[in-house]
């Protein structure tokens, strides 16, 4: 990656200069007119966007060594695709700084390796949200939040990187709400979920390292989410109580629709510390949860989701595990957030994710 130059203000759009005083003055009327123009064309997600111009695209592209014509996003069922250059247009519109571009592009590389994303995800009634997870020193360089409030607002890279993905889906792939996009309600925080792993406070190897990349690599993983549930468990006496609480959220019947599913566990650093100090590795945590999270056939039947179908019949007390296997594909675990309270997040994964981290370059 080209070393990012400090790039604060708008470079391609000139502001009105007052030559006499030497001061610069922005034109709010022009800014509003441009924003309204972009709204009127139907190119935005409902919030104001910035205009993309050829100069601005070139300024962003200086931050990647990828071929601008490389196709990084595609939706074969619609005969649609987006190149590095097309995605760059959306990074600009989303409000990214140019140095965020490699993260946006790598997020698309990750999504293009995800069968679910290439398949029906963007048109799905579930309305899943990509959860973009960043590892490596790039988190500090970009000032990407991995500490308190990772699912909330307040940090430009965390907010604009996933937004760029959503705008690309809308404009380049043509999946527009109420047309080809058919989300029944959609996931809260759709196009808004991006955070860095709190590697410095994790007792375990980083998520990207666990997925096969070198320690310290700048990396992106993307997981499509169906729901998120907050687990507030700060009064436990034994780490096993915390695990039981996570299992309780993971086995909710609400999002349960396939025979098995996958969950992302975003552990706050304090839960991670307590578990590690009790001698649990990340894989130990995963295996315990895979073994204990599930429902019986009778419990599923009581909510109309029995898995007996056709020739396949289950006894009432047959235990259906939530997870098929104790692997990062089925139960990815990431450390994130502040250690100021023992609050973690269970994120239900939409279908499957490939279990891969992608190096940022």
């Amino acid at each position, binding site marked *: 990656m080209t070393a990012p130059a400090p790039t604060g203000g708008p470079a*391609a*759009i*000139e502001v*009105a200069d007052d030559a006499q005083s030497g001061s610069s003055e922005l*034109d709010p009327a*022009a800014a509003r007119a*441009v924003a309204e*123009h*972009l709204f009127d*064309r139907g*190119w935005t997600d409902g919030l104001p966007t910035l*205009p*993309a*111009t*050829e*100069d601005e*695209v070139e300024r962003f592209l200086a931050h990647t060594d990828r071929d*601008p*014509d490389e*196709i990084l996003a595609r939706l*074969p*069922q*619609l*005969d*649609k*695709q*987006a*190149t590095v*250059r*097309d995605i760059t*247009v*959306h990074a600009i*519109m989303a409000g990214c700084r140019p140095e965020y571009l490699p993260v946006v592009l790598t997020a698309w590389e990750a999504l293009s390796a995800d069968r679910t994303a290439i*398949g*029906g*995800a963007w*048109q*799905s*009634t579930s309305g899943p949200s990509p959860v973009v997870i960043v590892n490596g020193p790039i988190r500090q360089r970009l000032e990407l939040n991995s500490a308190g409030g990772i699912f909330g607002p307040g940090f430009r890279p965390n907010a604009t990187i996933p937004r760029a993905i959503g*705008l690309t889906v809308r*404009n*380049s792939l*043509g999946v527009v709400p*109420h*047309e*080809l*996009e*058919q*989300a029944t309600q959609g996931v809260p925080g759709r196009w808004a979920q991006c955070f860095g792993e709190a590697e410095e406070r994790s007792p375990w190897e980083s998520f990207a390292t666990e997925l096969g990349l070198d320690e310290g690599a700048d990396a992106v993983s993307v997981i499509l989410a169906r729901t998120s549930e907050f687990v507030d468990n700060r009064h436990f006496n034994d780490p096993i109580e915390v695990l039981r609480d996570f299992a309780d959220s993971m086995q909710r019947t609400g999002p349960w629709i396939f025979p098995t599913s996958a969950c992302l566990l975003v552990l706050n650093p304090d839960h991670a510390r307590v578990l590690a100090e009790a001698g649990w590795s990340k894989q130990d945590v995963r295996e315990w949860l895979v073994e204990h999270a599930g429902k019986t056939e009778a419990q599923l039947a009581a909510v*109309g989701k029995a898995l007996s179908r056709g020739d396949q019949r289950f006894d009432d007390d047959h235990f259906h595990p939530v997870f098929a296997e104790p692997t990062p594909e089925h139960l990815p675990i990431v450390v994130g957030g502040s250690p100021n309270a023992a609050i973690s997040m269970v994120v239900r994964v939409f279908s499957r994710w490939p279990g891969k981290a992608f190096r940022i370059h």
Partner: protein
Amino acid sequence: MSTQQILDPTISSLSTQATKPASVAGGPLRVESLDGLRVGVLENTKRNAAEILDALADGLGERFDLGQVVRRTKRQFAMPFSDEQLQDLRDEVDVLVIGVGDCGSCSAAAVADGIALEANGIPAAVICTDAFEGNSRAMAKLKGAPDFDFIVTSHPVANLDDQGVRERGRALVDDVVGRIVASAAAGAAR
């Protein structure tokens, strides 16, 4: 002030983006009768889809002297046909009934499949639920066949019981005949 043009984000920088849609010439394809024909029924693994199509095939069998009922399953319901699937259907069926599009991606894919089939000369009756009429139509437009005539049934179908499934399948017989048989009235008179 800058006079630079604001880029249109819906237009790809790649010139090959403008792929030629599989446009269907003229109106929907028809056959004179289903007598002696190989009638394909393609279910997409959605709940009750196979059962509804079975009931529908039974109903067609009572009205026509079908040559054969060819059952097929499309496991990747969100995706349009692969080349292999398309070739298999070209080889094995004379007309095809596709169903049931009851979600965002599968209804759009079903319409895309129907258009692809008709572009290959095989009349196709595509069944989608009314909740997905909008995106089914959007897909038809995208494929260059904005007036593609698909069949709309009421939503939902996933939680119909056995009797409901049979009734729904039977109720769709007229729609399918009307869609792919030129002299539908003659068929109905049998």
